[in-house]
Structures are given as structure tokens and as C-alpha cells.
């Protein structure tokens, strides 16, 4: 059993290497450091001097793979590939274009991201499951049909609309919550309220619809009919049988998302001015800061792979029938 988990974990390594090579190829070979310098300095009338100067200050003035000017091992380590790509595996991301340490920035920003993302995720999950159960309870009746129609409409609304309308109505018109901002710790609950509410609301359409189809499929199975034939009450069937078994696919699929919660949400964070990783990415994109984007690609990949691994774990844990060899 343990050997299996270990093998699954090792399976992540070639993928990580692949992602690393891909981003290196994209950022340093498709788009050379010279192009990068041109973009930052403005395209027109840039002297070769200025470009060279920019490359030196940002540490791009090295050969790609092999530094012929150095001896021994440093010929390989004093290259862009080593400093920019290999070092990432040691979680050393270097500096962003404005001179800050990316690793420290990421550590500082993961907390605020989590403070929004975790409550949104938990409350959203609970709400969606509750709504889905309600629709299944009234299946083929009017509450079900109304629920399905509403879910289809909710999922057709742009997430930008939820955020902009929510911010406008709740914060500006009714003044129930601050428009934006963030305070770390318990005192920050006022700032967390609205983003979480909006995140939950915007996820209802897709989530409840999906869980409804899972529970409905479960409710059509033979063991449910047997339970009903034995004379079990409808509520007992729904909560003890349908819910419990229906949760298996729900749990295994949501576990994959858990690590990615650290990444936060791009839109919510940038609209509400939350200093998390989501707004970090948005700012980096706006400033065309390639090192930050590369670092976030790496982190995101690692988190995704952890999620994949957790999914495997969860399969064995939730469903005892799953035997792994």
C-alpha cells in the first residue's frame, strides 16, 4: 500500500520537469530576454546599451545552457537554465522585476488568499449539496424544475457580473460591507464577508446542478429501491443512503481542488483589493512581470499534483471497495 502511494508521488516528478522545461522554453527561448527588455523599455528607439543594462540588472545576462566563460561546474550553473529553472525545485524563485523576493511574497500572500478561498469553498460546498438534496427530494416536482431552471440561469451569468453587481449593491448602495480592502486576522471578517458571499453565489449554478445529477443517479439505483421496499422513510433513504454514497464522487473530485485554494481567485481578489496570490498574478500580468508568472505556474503545478495525489488517497479512503496494488 505504502509503495503505491510512493509510486504515485514519484509519478509527479516527470510532470514537474516537463512543466519546468515548457515554461523555460516559452519564456527564454520563444521570447528571448532581449524581447523582454524591449517590451519593458518601450519598443521604439531602444539602444543596445539600454537592453544590455536591463539584462544585467535583472540577471538575464547569462547564456541559456552552457557558459563557456566559466570553468568546471560553474560553466553549467552560471546559466539562465540553472538559475532560473533548476533552482525552482528548491523553491527559490529569485526576484521579481521590482526587486522583491518572490518566495517571501508568495508566503506572505498565501494566508489572505486562503482566508477568502477556504470559507468560500466550504460554505459553497455545503450550500450546493443542500440545494441539490432539496431538488432530489422534490424530484420531478415543481421545486425541482424551478431549481434546475434557476441553476441554468445562474450558471449563465458572468462571474464579473456577480462581483460588480454585488459590490455595487451591497457595498456602495446598501453600505452593508466595505467596498474593498483587507485586514489580517479576526478583525478582517468584515472584509471577508462580501467576497465569500459572492463567490458562493456565483458557484451555485454549476455546483448544485452537478451534485443534483450525481444524487439523482444514486437515487435510481437498486439498493435505494430495496431500502424503499423495506419501508424506510424517505428522509432516511435520502440522508443515509443517497447522500452517503453520492458523496463519494463529490469528495474525490473536491479533494483535487483543495491545494489550489492557496492560489486564491484572480477576479475576487483583484476586485476586492485582497493582497493574496490571485491579485499577485493579476498585478504581474498587468506589469508583464515574467518571473512572477513563471513562479506562479510552478507553484500552481505543484499544488495541482498534490491535489491529484490526494484524489487517489481519497478514493481508497472513502470507498473501501477500491483495492490498490
Amino acid at each position, binding site marked *: 500500500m505504502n509503495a503505491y502511494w510512493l509510486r504515485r508521488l514519484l509519478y509527479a516528478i516527470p510532470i514537474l520537469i516537463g512543466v519546468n522545461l515548457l515554461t523555460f522554453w516559452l519564456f527564454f527561448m520563444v521570447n528571448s530576454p532581449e524581447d523582454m527588455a524591449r517590451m519593458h523599455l518601450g519598443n521604439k528607439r531602444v539602444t543596445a546599451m539600454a537592453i544590455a543594462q536591463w539584462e544585467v540588472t535583472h540577471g538575464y545576462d547569462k547564456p541559456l545552457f552552457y557558459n563557456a566563460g566559466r570553468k568546471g561546474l560553474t560553466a553549467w550553473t552560471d546559466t539562465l537554465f540553472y538559475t532560473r529553472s533548476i533552482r525552482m525545485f528548491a523553491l527559490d524563485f529569485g526576484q521579481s522585476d521590482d526587486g522583491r523576493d518572490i518566495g517571501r511574497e508568495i508566503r506572505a500572500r498565501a494566508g489572505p488568499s486562503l482566508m477568502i478561498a477556504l470559507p468560500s469553498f466550504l460554505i459553497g460546498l455545503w450550500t450546493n449539496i443542500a440545494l441539490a438534496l432539496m431538488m432530489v427530494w422534490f424530484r420531478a416536482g415543481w421545486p425541482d424544475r424551478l431549481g434546475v431552471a434557476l441553476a441554468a440561469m445562474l450558471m*449563465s451569468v458572468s462571474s*464579473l457580473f456577480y462581483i460588480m453587481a454585488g459590490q455595487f449593491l451591497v457595498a456602495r448602495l446598501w453600505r452593508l460591507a466595505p467596498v474593498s480592502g483587507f485586514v489580517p486576522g479576526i478583525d478582517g471578517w468584515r472584509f471577508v464577508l462580501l467576497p465569500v458571499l459572492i463567490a458562493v453565489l456565483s458557484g451555485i449554478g454549476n455546483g448544485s446542478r452537478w451534485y443534483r*445529477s450525481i444524487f439523482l443517479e444514486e437515487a435510481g439505483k437498486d439498493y435505494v429501491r430495496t431500502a424503499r421496499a423495506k419501508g424506510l422513510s424517505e428522509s432516511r433513504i435520502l440522508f443515509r443512503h443517497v447522500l452517503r454514497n453520492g458523496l463519494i464522487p463529490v469528495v474525490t473530485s473536491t479533494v483535487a481542488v483543495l491545494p489550489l485554494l492557496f492560489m486564491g481567485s484572480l477576479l475576487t481578489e483583484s476586485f476586492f483589493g485582497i493582497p493574496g496570490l490571485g491579485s499577485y498574478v493579476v498585478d504581474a500580468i498587468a506589469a508583464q512581470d515574467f518571473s512572477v508568472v513563471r513562479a506562479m505556474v510552478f507553484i500552481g503545478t505543484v499544488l495541482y499534483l498534490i491535489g491529484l495525489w490526494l484524489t487517489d488517497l481519497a478514493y481508497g479512503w472513502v470507498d473501501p471497495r477500491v483495492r490498490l496494488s
Partner: protein
Amino acid sequence: MMGIHPVILWTDALVWLLVAGFAFALARRDSGLRKGVARLTRAPVAVASGMVLVAYLGVTLLDSLHFHPAAGDSGVVSVFDLLLRPLQRVSEKTYSAPLADRLFVQEQVLRPDGHQQRVYPLLAIVAQQAHGHAQPAAAVWYGVLQGLGLAGASAASVLIWFRRRRAARAALPPLAWRTALVMWTVGCVLFAVTVQLAASWHVFGTDKVGQDVLYQSLKSIRTDFLFGLLTTLATLPLAVGLGVAAGYFGGWIDDIIQYVYTTLNAIPGILLIAAAVLLMQGYIEVHAAHFDSLALRADFRLLFLCAILGVTSWTGLCRLLRAETLKLRELEYVQAARSFGVSDWRIMWRHILPNLTHLVLISVVMDFSSLVLVEAVLSYLGLGVDPSVPSWGNMINAAQLELAREPVVWWPLTAAFSLMFVLVLSANLFADSVREAFDPLGSRS
């Protein structure tokens, strides 16, 4: 009037080819497509949402016939622009609310007696009407009557036409007639009311530079529709080619393809898109000389964006097709074909691919709606289509500041979101129907 000088943009060519290809597939009598379509036209929801989608598609196609208005003029105009000319004719100084008579902001004017006064000036569109103008309510009623008349007349003429031709009637798929008729009437009435109102007012108001918002939001249809359509199209070669190859050949080919899509899948999609778009922006800036006109540049950017999204989002369909091919490969008829010595390519083309088309079709329709939503988000992040191109994302982006104004300017945002909502909702409903019609066994959950 000089001759017309047509311009074929890349996206124009692609969308017309796509529609032609689909029409060709539909025209073949033995295709499974026809059966599925016949099942679709029986379902009221599918008919209603499908008609809305066809209306959007129609606008997209009309807006994809471009030409230079005059020889030597580098500007590019579409046929749809010609139809919308009345909307463009009058532009105001700045913001004006929907159906307003006066400008939204005050202006200093000099009164005849020499005093300065702040007033809300009359809109140009109102001032140009010679003999006063009616109330909006009257125009709406007139429009409703006109629309009903239009719907009735067109329905009657279609009915008479079919009465005459029995053969045409027989070739028609079964149709949810009542829904079609209701939707057609609603469409006609909406169209007529809009035309009536647009003659004397700005139906959705005007934006910061005084442009008609209705015009902008209608022009945005092409961008967003093409974005959804061409992106799903861009995923197909990779998803189908690699998915079928992985499932059919197995072995090391399967291993490599699985590795590639797991790796691509591991990168958070939005970051990969961001990386690629940043690179593209760099490319366009460095090679600015290659794009001799603004329209060409914007078109290239739209096309490239679709390609990027296609390359980053083919993995889901690929995995699905691989699994299905694995199943199909073991079926008797494929085994038989193989034992007869039919080549691998021919087996994949003749025996495997036709049995995957329903999955591909469902996936295309299902992805379309989410892609339209993605366009807006990408524009917000500064990764979307060219800012000079009208798109709902760009409108929403601009409207962000308008929401912070006091009093608030809400109409550009509302217009963009409403048109987007209608498209996405009907695409979602249509996707559900397509899934039911083409995949009765539910092999895709």
C-alpha cells in the same frame, strides 16, 4: 459609387468555412447528424435556444463579410455595419441614458441675456427630428403592432408555401411548431420595437464618447461568438488526433500522449494562457511592421487567442476520446477490419472516428458557453481581444469606472451583460438538449 473591394480576414474565412462544412455534413442523407438534428427539433427547449443561437450566428456571419468602403481606404467595414448605419449616424457628446432626451451631464451655456447657465443639453438625435417626436410608449406600441404583423405575415407565407409543395413538407424534420412560432413572434416584436425606438432615441444610451451603446453591443456579438466557436474548433485537431492515436495504438504512443496532456493539464489554465498571451503581445510589438492595418492586427490577435485557448484546453476531450477509442478498438467490427488487412489509418478514419462524432459535437457545444464567459474575464485581466475590437469583455472593462461614478452610469454594463447572458443561457440550454439528443446512453456525465 466605386466597386466594392472585399477583404477576407482570417477569422472571416474560418467561420464561413466552418458553417459551410456543417451545412455539407447536414446535407448528407445517411449521416447520423440528421437523426440527431431531427431529435433536436422535436424538443421545445432546443428549438427555442437554437433559434436564439441562429440569430446570434446570423449577426456573426453578416459581420464577417468585410470590404474596404473605397479604393485606397484602409478602413474595413462589414455588411452588418451597413445595416447598422442608422445607429451610427448620430453620435452625442458624451453619456446619455437609455431613451433619454437630454445629455446625462450638465453643460455651460450662454443665455441670450448674457448669463451663464448649467443645463442638460438636448441630444443631437432628438434635435435632428423635424416635427417633434412621439413618446417612447407610443413607439413601443407601434413596434409591437408592426412586429406582430411581420410575424403573422411571414408565418402565413411559409404556411402557404408548404401547402403548395408536398415534397418540401415531407423533407422537413419534425418541429416543435408552437415553440418555434412563439419564439419567432417574440423575435419579430423585439426587432420591430428596437427599430422603432432606435429611430428617435439611443435605445441603450450612449457611452463616454457619445457612441451608441446598442451599436457597440451588437458589434460585440461577432467577437464573442467567434471566440467561442474558433476556440473549440482549435481544440479539435489536437484532441481528436491525439486522443484517437493514443487509444488505438496504445503502447509507447499512448504513454507519450498521456504524459503530454497530464503535463499540460497540471499547469493552471489561466496562467498558461497568461504566459502565452504575454508572449504574443511581445511578438506583435516587436513585429509591428507585419500588420499593415489595425483591423488585421486585431484579427490576428483574436485568432491567436483562440489558438492559445485551443492548445491549453484540448486535454479534457482528448482523455474522453482516448477512453472511448480503447473501448471501440476491441469491438468485433474493428477486429474484423483489422483481420482483413485494412490499414490503421483507414480503420481510424472509417470505423473509429464516425463513432466518436457525437462526443466531439457535444463537447464543442458544451464548451462554447463557458468560452464566451471566459472572453470577458480575459479582457478584464488585459489578456483578451484587442482593445480596439468591440467585445462584451472590453465594454465591461470600460464600465468598471462608470459604476464608480456618481450618479452611476449603468447602461453600457447592463447592455453587455444582458446580451451575453442571453447568448450563454441559450448555449447552455442548447448544450443540454444536444447531449440528450446525441448521447441517449449518457456516456459523458
